[in-house]
């Protein structure tokens, strides 16, 4: 027999002075391969047309649908109800500004993050449209892609104790982004530039290393390895041992 599910959903409209934060229960019958994308749309269609949540790709690639599912931040679109108990509690991710119900403002947060870490290739070279592309060996390209796979879903931030108490903490996604440019030979930032960016309490040294982030990243980014690599390189800089060309050495990524 099909299970009867209860979706206990956080409801609150911060723009409505009469709205109070609360949880509301919605009942539904489980159907085969039901995921939370379909389940939430069913609730919107049949029970709560004003329920706010965010989905775009519904395929686990755009990073829109991060939310707390039974207390754990993850992508709702690729979560099957079959993996969960009959009572499913859904809440918006903490650490981001609430827009309403399950919807949070990750866009503003991530643009701010990109601005802070200057998430672009820093180079003196001008693009020459007549020249062939600069060469790169495929292993390096693969390693960069591995870290470039972050989809800015925010799960690592929502799951990070430090980010939840310190608004200025860069979070795992930012450290990963820095790592991505550190290993990119096209980026000319020096070890000292990187040191300035990460070796503060907002950066890698503020991280308590409990790896809540690594555990929840839906893209299984090797956050652990990235942090270890950065710590190593930063302590070398601190000890004055960094070679000027260290920017091209790569972390070991499994």
């Amino acid at each position: 027999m099909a299970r009867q599910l209860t979706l206990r959903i956080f409801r609150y409209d911060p723009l409505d002075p009469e709205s109070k934060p609360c949880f509301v229960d919605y009942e539904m019958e489980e159907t085969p391969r039901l995921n939370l994308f379909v389940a939430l749309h069913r609730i919107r269609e049949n029970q709560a047309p004003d329920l706010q949540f965010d989905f775009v790709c519904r395929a686990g690639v755009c990073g829109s649908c991060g939310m707390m599912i039974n207390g754990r931040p993850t992508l709702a679109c690729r979560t099957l109800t079959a993996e969960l108990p009959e009572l499913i509690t859904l809440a918006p991710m903490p650490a981001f500004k609430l827009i309403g119900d399950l919807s949070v403002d990750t866009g503003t947060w991530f643009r701010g993050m990109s601005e802070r870490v200057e998430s672009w290739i820093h180079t003196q070279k001008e693009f020459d449209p007549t020249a062939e592309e600069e060469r790169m060996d495929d292993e390096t390209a693969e390693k960069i892609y591995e870290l470039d796979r972050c989809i800015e879903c925010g799960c690592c931030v929502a799951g990070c104790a430090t980010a939840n108490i310190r608004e200025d903490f860069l979070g795992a996604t930012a450290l990963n982004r820095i790592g991505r440019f550190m290993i990119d030979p096209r980026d000319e930032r020096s070890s000292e530039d990187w040191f300035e960016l990460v070796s503060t309490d907002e950066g890698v040294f503020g991280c308590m290393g409990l790896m809540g982030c690594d555990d929840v990243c839906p893209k299984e980014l090797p956050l652990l390895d990235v942090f270890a690599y950065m710590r190593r390189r930063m302590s070398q800089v601190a000890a004055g041992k960094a070679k000027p060309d260290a920017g091209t050495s790569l972390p070991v990524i499994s």
Partner: protein
Amino acid sequence: MSELITTDVLVIGAGLAGERAAISAAAEGNDVVILSLVPPRRSHSCAAQGGMQAALGNCNKGAGDSEELHWLDTVKGSDWGCDQEVARIFADTAPVAMREMAHHGVPWTRVKGGPADYFIKGKKVTLEEPRENEGLIMHRDFGGVSRWRTCYTADGTGHTVLYAMDNMVIELGISVHDRMEAIALIHDGEKCHGAVVRCLRTGELKNYVAKATVIATGGFGRVYKYSTNAIINQGTGQSIALDTGLVPLGNMEAVQFHPTGIVPTDILVTEGCRGDGGLLLDVDEYRFMPDYEPDKQELASRDVVSRRMTEHIQKGKGVPSPDGEHLWLDLRHLGEDHLRTKLREVYDICMYFLGVNPIKELVPVRPTQHYSMGGIRVNKDGHAYGLKGLWSVGESACWDMHGMNRLGGNSLAETVVAGMFCGQRMGQWAKAQTHEVDKALADKALNAQHERISSLISGGIGEANENVDELLIAAQEILQDKVGIFRKGEELEQAVVELREIYRRSGNLKMRSAFKGANPELAAAIRLPGMLKLALCVAKGALLRTESRGGHSREDYPERNDRDWLKRTLARWPIGADEPDISYEPVGLLESPPGQRGYGGAENIAMEQSVEDYNATVESEWIKQGWHPTATPLGTELKEMVEYASTKKS
């Protein structure tokens, strides 16, 4: 009264096309604001997996490639329905566009010199990759191409290119206002002055006034019931252009169905699966494509593969399932290594959404709505017909390099190329304009929207007895069932009648919830009439086009008819009308006369007019349709016709 934001250039849409156009416009010295329904990196461009076409010819199977061949493949792919000059601009610019993205950080998969193993036409082969090209951008095979030319980053191409592009936007300090939806254009009948925009955080309306307004809002796949498109691909950009009554949409009946949407959920697995050697099997696990297409096999163009799959299912060879019949995609022979690196997203999608492990199991697939060749009709500079100062790039536009069918890998490449090329022309145009801020005009446009929304939330409109979701679902089902892969006159006629009725009923909407703010039901109610209009443009265009060309396939008119239908459909929606007005124009100057594609196997009715006579009508017919003169004369970008512009009689 209302808030008014002024900028030189307003770009509606923060996908690849919009962002690249914004960068070009900024480079010309304009202030630019970009609007988006969602944070830019969540735009649908991020979901493109397979890659983008550019004739770099770096790998073994790419050797001897050229812009010329890329152009010819594109023209063939379009079934000679495209504007060949635009296809030239595209093929010539694509290599620079890829290299530029490499410069700005895309970690393209690279050539590894030496022997490498591939699966080609069902067989394992070892090829020698050129050592002298070590480290250059690698290519994979795709459908309908004569060389391997798809540049890719594993199967996260759209993601890496969009992230690199958005990084450029951030570096340049271009503002992006996300969760903002353009719901109407501000115009005076001659010129577009910006847009009325609704904030999806608060529900507030604002006017954005600009010298040039660019619609880069992507495809409208969500008018179909089963689509690979993101759920935000609802065609609002195309519909606000249509709402002006002045701007035509081109070839709306040209809808692409991708062979491999997974069943259920309709999520796409990339053509790269077949490019890398994946095979299509039927209920008996028999590989059927070589029987239909001995030469191209699984890698004929998408329209052809989707039709062959449908034919094969109709012959009783589909795999029955509770979610309808499907076929199988076999990736098992590619091996774990390949599937977990070069096709990793595909692996994840199969595991998470189907519980199928493609290393060991077959993947259920069927043809699924995927791409809109049609869109806002623009000239080769991207300037929309019928309204000065309105531009469009990317999937929302009918720039028209795709004609009646686009090749895989050509649209992601189009977004960047059109963003560069048209963005520059638009930026230069905007720079030469003076700002005319007509506040009264803008307020009037905003008030009209305000009134519409107020009546929606206070009790409903008209008879106030219709539900938004129900009407949308009904329309989606009609398109799915009657305007699908194979089309018939009778069914198309029914579709038009039924959609007209639904459109009428959308004048009687009633909301079930009643708050103004970020209410999703209200957002859907605002979009609904526009979506229904697009559905009608698709259905009516398909009904009237009595031939089969590219993605438009009529059972009652199976041949491609170059005598009567070497034309582009233009749909306009006169204010207050209950269906679109359809007219036609020539597809463009012909450099390559219509010929055989070499796959698909349909008959053709030959052109009777000479190519010269055909070409002589193009410019005057286009002008009648509201075409704006371009920065360079018509035909300049064609190779054989460089002289055309100077020798033609006026």
